[in-house]
C-alpha cells in the first residue's frame, strides 16, 4: 500500500493469469442470461448446446487467429477462406463423387496454399499483414464466387452433401453428437488444450511470443521469425477449413457467402480474451473464453425474446468493456510487480 496506483495483493498473481478476465466475463454473461432467460430454455442441455456450437465453430478459428496475433500478424482472409474451403470440399464430393476424406484433403491442400501465399507475401513485401490479407479477403471471396458460379452453371451453392457423405466415419467424427453436444465442441476443447500447452511449454510457443514481442531481438536470438509466421498463416487457413468442413457437413450445403465477418469475430474473441492487437501478448484459453462469450451473447439474446436488432450493439459494448477491464487489470498487475 505504498502508492494508490498499486492494486491489492491478489491482483499481483493476475499478471501471469491473463485468462482471469475472460473467464470472469464469460461467467458474468452466463449469469446475465441465466437470470433473464433461464425460464425460456437457455439453461437446458439444448440451450447450452445451442450457444456452445456457435462458440466452438468460432473458437476453433480463434485459436489460430490468437496465435497469429501473438506473433504480431493479422489474417483478415479467414472468413473468405471459410467460404472457399466449403466449396473446395463439397464440390468434388458431391459433383465428382470423391470420398469425403479426399474432398477434405483437397480443401486442406488449397488452404495450405492460401496460407503459404499470405505468409510469404507478408514476409517478402514487409507490408502490414492487415493490408495483404485484406486483399486476400476480396480476392478469395471473388474467386470462390466466380469459380462456383462457373462450374455449377449459375448456382452459388453446392447442396446434396448429406446424401454424398452418408455413413462416413469422418462425417460422424466432425458433424455427429456426443452427450447431446455437437462434435465441434469437443474438437474445440481438445484443440484449445493442445494449443495452450504448445504455446506455454514448447520452443515453438516461445518463438511465437518472440516473433510478436520484438521480432528483431528474437531473430538475433536465433528465432526463425519468418518461418514461425508463415506456419501460423497456414494454420489459420487450415483452422478456417476445418470449421468450413464441419459447417458444410452439419448444414448439408456449401455456400459461397458463408463466413463473412468471421475474421473480425475471431479477432473480437481473441481481444475479449486478452490478446493484444500489438502482438507479443495473449493466451489461447483467453481466446476460447472470448469465443464462448461471443457465442453466448449471439445466441442468448434470442432466448430473451429481446429485439435481435440489438445484438450487434450489445456485442460492441461487451467488446469495449472487456478491453477496458483487461487494460485495468494488466496495468494494476504490472504496477504491483
Amino acid at each position, binding site marked *: 500500500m505504498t502508492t494508490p496506483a498499486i492494486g491489492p495483493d491478489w491482483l499481483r498473481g493476475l499478471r501471469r493469469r491473463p485468462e482471469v478476465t475472460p473467464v470472469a466475463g464469460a461467467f458474468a454473461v452466463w449469469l446475465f442470461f441465466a437470470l433473464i432467460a433461464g425460464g425460456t430454455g437457455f439453461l437446458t442441455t439444448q440451450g447450452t448446446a445451442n450457444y456452445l456450437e456457435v462458440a466452438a465453430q468460432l473458437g476453433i478459428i480463434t485459436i489460430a487467429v490468437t496465435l497469429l496475433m501473438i506473433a504480431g500478424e493479422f489474417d483478415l482472409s479467414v472468413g473468405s477462406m471459410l467460404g472457399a474451403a466449403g466449396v473446395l470440399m463439397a464440390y468434388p464430393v458431391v459433383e465428382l463423387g470423391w470420398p469425403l476424406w479426399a474432398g477434405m484433403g483437397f480443401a486442406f491442400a488449397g488452404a495450405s496454399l492460401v496460407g503459404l501465399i499470405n505468409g510469404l507475401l507478408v514476409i517478402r513485401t514487409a507490408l502490414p499483414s492487415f493490408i495483404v490479407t485484406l486483399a486476400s479477403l476480396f480476392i478469395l471471396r471473388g474467386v*470462390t464466387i466466380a469459380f462456383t458460379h462457373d462450374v455449377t*452453371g449459375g448456382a452459388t451453392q453446392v447442396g446434396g452433401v448429406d446424401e454424398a457423405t452418408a455413413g462416413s466415419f469422418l462425417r460422424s467424427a466432425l458433424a455427429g453428437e456426443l452427450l447431446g453436444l455437437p462434435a465441434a465442441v469437443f474438437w474445440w476443447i481438445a484443440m484449445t488444450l493442445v494449443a495452450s500447452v504448445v504455446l506455454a511449454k514448447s520452443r515453438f510457443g516461445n518463438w511465437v511470443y518472440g516473433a510478436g514481442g520484438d521480432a528483431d531481438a528474437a531473430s538475433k536470438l536465433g528465432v526463425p521469425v519468418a518461418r514461425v509466421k508463415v506456419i501460423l498463416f497456414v494454420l489459420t487457413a487450415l483452422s478456417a477449413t476445418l470449421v468450413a468442413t464441419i459447417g458444410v457437413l452439419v448444414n*448439408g450445403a456449401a455456400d459461397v457467402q458463408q463466413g463473412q465477418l468471421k475474421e473480425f469475430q475471431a479477432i473480437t474473441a481473441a481481444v475479449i480474451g486478452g490478446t493484444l492487437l500489438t502482438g507479443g501478448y495473449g493466451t489461447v484459453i483467453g481466446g476460447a473464453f472470448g469465443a464462448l462469450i461471443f457465442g453466448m451473447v449471439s445466441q442468448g439474446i*434470442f432466448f430473451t425474446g429481446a429485439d435481435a436488432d440489438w445484438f450487434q450493439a450489445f456485442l460492441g459494448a461487451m467488446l469495449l468493456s472487456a478491453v477496458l477491464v483487461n487494460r485495468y487489470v494488466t496495468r494494476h498487475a504490472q504496477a504491483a510487480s
Partner: protein
Amino acid sequence: MRTLKAKRLRVTAVSLALAAAFAAVACGGDDKTQSAPDTGSSRAGMHIEFAFAGVPGDPYYTVIKNGAAQAEKDMGVDVEFKETAQYDFQEQVRLIKAAIARKPDGLVVSEESPEVLDGPVKDAVDAGIPVIIAAAGEDSVAKTGALGFVGQNEFEVGFKAGLQLKAAGVKRVACLNPAVGTPNLDSRCEGLEKAIGTGNVDVIAIDQTDRTAAKNRVKAILQRGGVDGILALAAATVAEPAVAAVEESGKQDEVTVATIDLSPGVLSAVRDGKLLFASDQQQFLAGYLPVVLLALQHQYGIRPPSFVPTGPSYVTKANAAEVIELSKRGIR
C-alpha cells in the same frame, strides 16, 4: 460483361416459352402470322445496363443475373449487369450515376431502398434514359417516372403466405428476416401480420452468412415456445437452417414452416413435406423481362402499362420435383 458472356447457360424450354408468350402478348395478337422476332434493324447494338444492389454470389440475385444473360442472347442486344460489391445502396447510387453518364439505351434498377434510390433514378429518367424498375420498388414507378415495374408486390407476398399458413391452422408466426429495415422485406412481415392477426407475428433478425448461427437462433426461438409457424424470408440461407432447426428440435408436428424464394435445399424440403410451400417470385423474369420490355420499347415504342407481376407463384409438394432441376441451374 465478360462474366456474363462466359456463362454457360443453356437455352431452356422455359425461357423460350416465356419469350414466345411475351412476344405474343406484346404484339397484341395470337394470330398465325406471328413470325420470329426481328433482331435485325433497330435493336441491334442496343445497350442495356442493370444497376443492382445484389451481392455477387447471392443465389437470389444470381437467378436475376442469369435471366438478364438469357435475354441478352434471346433478344440480340447488349446487356451489362452491374452489381454492388456489398449490399450497399450508396454504391448502387454510384452505379446509377455512372450509367447516366454513359447514357445507355435502357437502364434496369432494383429499388430495395426507395428513399435513397428514387432521386438518382429520377435523374436517369430526366436524362432521357428509359428506366425499368425490377425485383423491388413497385411504388417508385410513380415517383420517378420510370416506364414500369417488373416484380412482385411484397405486402401481397407476405399476406398470401399468411393466409395459407392460417388455413393450415397456424396461430402465431416467427417472420425470419435477414435484412430488417429494408422496405421490401419488412412489407412481407407486415403482410403476414395482416393475414395472421395483429400481434401474432414475431420478427426475428437472421444472420445469412453463418448457417450454424442461423439454425441455432431458430432453435432458441422454438425452445422459448409460443410460435407454431415460421415464415422464412429467404431460401437457402434462412429457410434451410430453419427446417433443420425444427427437425433437430423434434417439433415437425407442432411447427409449420414456409418460405419465400427457392433454393435446391428448399425444394427438396418442399418435396419431402418439411416445408408447407415456397412462395416464388420467379425472379428470372425480373432479369429477363426488363430486357424484353426495353428492347421492344426501343424498337417499336410499345410496352405494357406499368406493373408486370412475376409472382408470387407457389411451389408445393405437387410440383416441387419439376422445379428442382431448374433451380439447380440458377433459373428458379
